[in-house]
């Protein structure tokens, strides 16, 4: 039964796409990956409109201060188990907005992130690769590092930094 559920989870990731102050480049590419040419529905990915239906939160942009409480709220509204993808250089590290007075330096300053997809903007292939790798990993009994750390209570405090970016969690471009 556990195996079956793991298979179901990794075969049906519904994504919620959230713009946290991106320049729109990454958003266009994210939507691109759902269009006929790349067609993420092949992997069971559907784009959902409400956080209640979603499994994977795809964030783009460096998270503006305006967006911060909203991002937290939307993250909390998603039902468990949930995963977060930081799509684009801005979402990973602040990118061109680094040290900007009105922005954070990436999504992981606000909520825990499971997968970083680099690129400015990301290419649809990179996003697909990121999602597939993320699901492979989370399928293995929820072994994604965030899930492990969550259970140890590291992210109870949302001010705590969310792990370092290691090679394992960066998708190929």
């Amino acid at each position, binding site marked *: 039964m556990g195996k079956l*559920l793991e298979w179901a989870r990794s075969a*049906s990731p519904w994504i919620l796409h959230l713009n946290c102050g991106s320049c729109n480049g990454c958003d266009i590419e994210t939507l691109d990956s759902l269009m*006929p040419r790349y*067609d993420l*529905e092949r992997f069971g990915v559907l784009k959902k409109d409400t956080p209640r*239906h979603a499994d994977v939160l795809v964030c783009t942009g460096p998270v503006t201060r305006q967006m911060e409480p909203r991002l937290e709220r939307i993250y909390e*509204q998603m*039902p468990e188990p949930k995963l977060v993808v930081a799509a684009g250089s801005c979402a990973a590290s602040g990118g061109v907005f680094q040290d900007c007075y009105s922005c954070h330096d990436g999504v992981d300053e606000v909520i825990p992130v499971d997968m970083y997809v680099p690129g400015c903007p990301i290419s649809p292939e990179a996003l697909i690769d990121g999602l597939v790798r993320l699901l492979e990993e989370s399928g293995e009994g929820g072994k994604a590092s965030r899930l492990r750390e969550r259970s140890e209570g590291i992210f109870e405090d949302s001010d705590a930094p969310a792990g370092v970016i290691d090679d394992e969690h960066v998708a190929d471009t």
Partner: protein
Amino acid sequence: MSLAVELGQSLFYVLVFPGFAFLFGYALVAEYADRKLYARLQNRVGPPAVQPFADFLKLLSKESIVPEDAEGTIFEAAPIVALAGVLTPILYVPIWSVEAVFAFQGDLIVVLFLLTIPSFALIFGGWHSRNAFGQVGTVRTLTQLFGYEIPFFLACLAPAVAAGTWSVSGIASFVGTRPLYIPVFAIGFAVALLSLQAKLERIPFDVPEAETELVTGPLVEYSGRKLALFRLTKDVELVVGAALLSALFLGGPYPAGAIADVGSTAGAVIGFGVFLVKTLAIVFVLTVLRAVLARLRIEQLVSVFYLWLVPLALIQLAVVGVVGTTEVIP
């Protein structure tokens, strides 16, 4: 037949075939066919065959949230009531033989009533989720309900008037043995198809869901297994609606009756095959409608139903009356 045998048989009908187990499987197949065809029409590859099952299983295993402000009992009961409402009518629709398993005089009314239950469950659930989007969506569901129910009932009335019976099985055998009546019902069939599309809240009649402005309307707060049940309800409703239309307008399991004796095993198998072909054809038409049309606004939707479909359904009734009194079709 002893009581135990009869009870066992009834339980088999309700739980396995044509009840719960069969409907569950067939509904997932229909959803797959619908999504795959939709993807192909958009020049995409589309989901794999097990996709609806994976979605269902995943949703069952997820956390199922009840919002703090929501009316807990109603919010949780709505999906179960909706599913029960759509699982029952299949017992009154003929599938493999002329008679439905629990057919009785007047079951058409029961079927039409049961098919409205999911909409009401959605309305209650959406309203009591106390979410602004959910409540606006609920109001639209209600507005839409008054739009499509009347043409749907009027359209279903036409074959009933022609056959002179209120039993779905009776109507199916009447139309099945007189195939010349099928073109007579063409207008009614079109009206019923469009109304069914609106009942299922699919494009072009998906104003209550309207993801761009209402983020899926009444379903906005549903997650986990409650959402899974609502999704299953929609799929089952699609299958049952298609089965009802095929029985009323296309003669149900006929022409299997002409090929083999309908009571025999061979007749039952052929009749079941005919049922699958006819229902999938109706699902196909509904999918093509969904792929080629764009969403209407709510007031356009109401005027389509009241200004076009209701008069068309009335014309259909008049046509049936003329055909019936002049007896042009033996």
